[in-house]
């Protein structure tokens, strides 16, 4: 039998809090097993900023709240065979999505900026300017889920999904089968 290449994994955090990546580290010493089974390509875990080659599995934390997120997500879609949206933010927008509707504003983006940079009582911003340096990624009109932007092969809900959930999912995907998670490992919170 031809020797199988180690599965290549890429990960990214878009509009997330890195909680899902932290949860990935929560697999504890199983990370030693993982490193036997896979090699990491583009990922904040190894600080690789670009794909070096095509990957088998892409893990996406967070939805899209700015143009850079969209760009990264599309890059992942075109460079990964299987794309997995991980965590509530990637799946349904998570806490960032609150700016879409829950603020009840006709102009939620402006209200969000005003609260962050102009009106907050805990703010020091003598210029009263909303940051607008061209180097900053443009913020989108609303927060989008991963599915809104690209085709997603799997979703793992949770805020964050537990280390066990991520571990079992990865082991299944590495073995080319869908993750069949037990009741206690599918959570939306």
């Amino acid at each position, binding site marked *: 039998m031809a020797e199988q290449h180690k599965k290549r994994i890429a990960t990214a955090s878009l509009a997330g809090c890195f909680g899902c990546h932290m949860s990935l580290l929560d697999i504890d010493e199983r990370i030693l097993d993982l490193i036997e089974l896979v090699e990491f390509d583009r990922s904040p875990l190894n600080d690789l900023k670009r794909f070096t080659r095509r990957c088998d599995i892409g893990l996406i934390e967070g939805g899209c709240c700015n143009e850079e997120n969209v760009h990264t997500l599309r890059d992942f879609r075109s460079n990964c065979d299987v794309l997995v*949206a991980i965590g*509530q933010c990637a799946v*349904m*927008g*998570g*806490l960032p*999505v*609150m700016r*879409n*509707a*829950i603020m*009840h504003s006709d102009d939620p983006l402006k209200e969000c900026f005003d609260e962050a940079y102009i009106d907050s009582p805990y703010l020091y911003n003598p210029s009263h300017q909303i940051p607008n340096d061209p180097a900053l990624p443009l913020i989108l009109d*609303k927060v989008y*889920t991963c*599915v*809104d932007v690209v085709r*997603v092969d*799997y*979703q*793992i*809900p949770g*805020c964050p999904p537990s280390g066990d959930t991520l571990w079992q999912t990865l082991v299944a995907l590495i073995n080319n089968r869908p993750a069949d*998670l037990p*009741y*206690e490992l*599918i*959570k*939306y*919170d």
Partner: protein
Amino acid sequence: MNTPIRFQIDGVEVLAEPGQSIMQAADAAGIYIPRLCDVEGLEPQGSCRVCTVKVNGRTAAACTQPAAADIEVENDTLELTNYRRDLVRMLFHEGNHLCPICEASGRCELQAMGYRLGISQPTKYPYLQPARPVDASHPDIVLDTNRCIRCGRCIRASRDIDGKSVFGYVGRGIDKKVGVNGDNLLATDASIDDCAIALETCPVGCIIQKGMGFYKPIGERSFDHQPIGSNIEGNRSGAAHREETWRQGEE
């Protein structure tokens, strides 16, 4: 003595008292039929359709459909599970259900139904993200209508048990929502002791008692380990016992 009605659910013989719904008979037999708008103690309303079963091949809401002799009911089939999945998905997509920040997470019946039905994968439905109000006017109660699934349980509890009719439906179709009988909740005679406000009444986190917060830690909440409906399925031995009782009743 009433003669029991005999019928089958997924090929299992079930007995019902005359006047019982399919759901009531199934509960007594330890067979769980998923449900959201129906809850013990309130008149069934038959609006969420999560309890959809097939009766002699035709769909019906188990909570309102009377049990009848010799009917064949399908409940636990892939086709029906898929109907139920779609209904529950649509509820998730229609409101703003942010489980990570919801006080009801872990005891929410909508969430638990998602877990039980194994809902986690991408769907064809868009998130509608409606702008819906929060009413925190009352000193003891908050209404966060982002989470309301319009099951009407609060409406029936307030009308039929509390005798207050604090809640009622307003609007039609996709705009149908639950309103209160006043400018806001404070202007009504809602009280924290009302059945309508009890934790068991609202299946989601729309009616929230102030000061409760996240009162149970993760791991100890209702559906952390046991799927919704387990309490009914735990009745199965009780069902055998009940059948014996019925047989005795026949003699």
